[in-house]
């Protein structure tokens, strides 16, 4: 029985008289990449923020690494926080600091490292995220969209977390950049043994790197499991999502990156379609 990284039971979250989550249950297992989908405005980011403690829940249970967040002491909570990394949708890099300083900030706050080691580790993370070394001294305003996302990912990985939250990581990226980012996440997940909770709309990401998917509709998780479960689901929204025209194209195009290893990427993600793909299908 795989270990559970996040367990949510009966979560109720609302604003005023509007209930966004109505008794939501979810499990995220250690070492997996979970894709989280839902229509716009259904509360995907509400769930993420509630799990992270940025929003207050009305009732329900949230456990991270087996610890009930309602009953832990502040010190234990701080310890859990350090095992989590978050990458926000717009990056949320601190605009007054360079990329390197952004990555070093969590290290400076929580760890006592020598300046040299902290600098080396920061450069290591920046490199792992696929950025060139000269990006380290740039300010966030000087970065392109793709670079911002990579910098945000480097910062999320600063403390070598075990659990990483990604909020729409490929939104706003061109198809090649998005495919590269998908591959980066898959590689890092293998290298660092991460558990990844990815909120996304990107069907290509869902097909290529997610081990399991959870679909949010009507304030609950209505389908949870690998792609096959999603395809078999009878829920109207899930069905429309995974059997619509774009979904079919994505299915034609995508191979699984993680398992096959040599699934070709850049061509696949963009060219699936009636005319046949330009890249070999595995």
């Amino acid at each position: 029985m795989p270990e559970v990284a996040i367990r949510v039971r009966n979560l109720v979250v609302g604003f005023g008289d509007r209930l966004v989550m109505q008794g939501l249950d979810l499990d995220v297992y250690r070492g997996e990449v979970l894709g989280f989908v839902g229509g716009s405005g259904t509360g995907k980011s509400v769930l993420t923020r509630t799990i992270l403690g940025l929003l207050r829940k009305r009732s329900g249970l949230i456990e991270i690494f087996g610890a009930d967040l309602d009953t832990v002491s502040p010190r234990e909570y701080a310890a859990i926080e350090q095992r989590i990394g978050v990458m926000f949708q717009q990056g949320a890099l601190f605009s007054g600091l360079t990329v390197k300083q952004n990555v070093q900030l969590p290290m400076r706050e929580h760890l006592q490292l020598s300046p040299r080691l902290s600098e080396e580790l920061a450069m290591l993370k920046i490199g792992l995220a696929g950025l060139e070394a000269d990006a380290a001294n740039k300010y966030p305003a000087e970065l392109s969209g793709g670079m911002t996302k990579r910098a945000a990912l480097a910062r999320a990985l600063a403390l070598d977390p075990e659990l990483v939250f990604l909020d729409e990581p490929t939104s706003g990226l061109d198809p090649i950049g998005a495919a590269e980012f998908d591959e980066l996440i898959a590689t890092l997940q293998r290298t660092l043994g991460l558990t990844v909770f990815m909120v996304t709309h990107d069907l290509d990401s869902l097909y290529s790197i997610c081990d399991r998917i959870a679909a949010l509709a009507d304030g609950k998780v209505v389908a949870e499991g690998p792609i096959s479960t999603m395809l078999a689901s009878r829920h109207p929204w899930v069905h429309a999502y995974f059997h619509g025209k774009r979904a079919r194209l994505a299915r034609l195009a995508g191979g699984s990156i993680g398992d096959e290893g040599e699934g070709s990427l850049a061509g696949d993600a963009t060219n699936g379609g009636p005319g046949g793909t330009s890249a070999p299908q595995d």
Partner: protein
Amino acid sequence: MDVPEGPKFSSQRAGDSLRLSLGGRWTVDASAAIEARAEGLLAESTGASRVVLDLGQVVRLDTAGAWLIDRTRQVLDAKGVDATLESIRPEYEILLREARYRVLAVPKPPRGSYIVRLLADIGESVVSAGADLYRGIGFLGEVVTAIGKSLVSPSHFRGTSLVVQIENIALRGAPIIALINCLAGAIIAQQGIFQLRRFGATVFVVDLIGILMLRELGVLLTAIMTAGRSGSAITAELGSMELREEIDALTVMGLRPVEILIVPRIVALIISLPLLTFIADMSGIVGGLIVSWIYEGITPARFLTLLRDAIVLHTFFSGLIKAPFMGLIIGLISCVEGLAVKGSAESLGRQVTASVVKSIFMIIVVDGLFAVFFAGIRY
């Protein structure tokens, strides 16, 4: 280069059937002409029992043109005239179908009575003022706790940040505070002299300047200037961080925004405002001194001698004591408003305005309270 031709049509009658040949560009950039032509089509069709709208000569068609042409057809239809469209180019078929004339229901916003809405607005303002107070007090509690924690473990205190903020607020603000108060002192002195001349008591202008600047005006002008300058800057800074989710990013990293961002700013304001008030007091007196010299010939030496008799130490302190409280108010309000920014740049603008207005309002209210207090204890 020819001006693109507008919409036009020509008509041929054969008995009671009519052929209208439309030509030119039936597009929205023809503006009034396109509606006029459409009316013309209808006018021309009176008396006919069969109308054919021939679109063969139409050079360009857009949604406006399609809408009006189809509307003409439907109006004729409703009048019992057999109306058809002919010679439709293939590329216009889809357009005519999608932009066909139909009644589109515009949802009407519910309009209650004016009085009810007015009362509701007033009620909402009162409730939100109460909510503001509640938030402000809660915030004050958080800040005090955070300051207390950093006194206990000084390593957590952001000294660098504090110094940067003091530089921004006090050092960079000093010149303008000095200038404004110098001018204020000068203006008071001038008007005071003109009025006191009537009683032959111009020598009391020294008392006027000394007491007014030191007790009230120095602190008030400084606080208002700082609210406008630094209060708005703090709100804008925190607000744009909130918009970019930087505050959330700090929180999830286990860093508390109150400790890192808020406390240095509030402590900096509490320290800076007395310093600036001192500069303000001195500048005000200098301004008054210069004007008294120019307008009334009171030499600086004489001015200072008279000043020494006019004021006592508590004249100075009663102004200075108010300064840290003003700083706290500016800090609390600007931080609360900054963190309340949600959504868009419009929200940011609104919160910055609210921050400055509320700060200035509370500054004057607190000044009034202090005045009552000091009068009560005869200070």
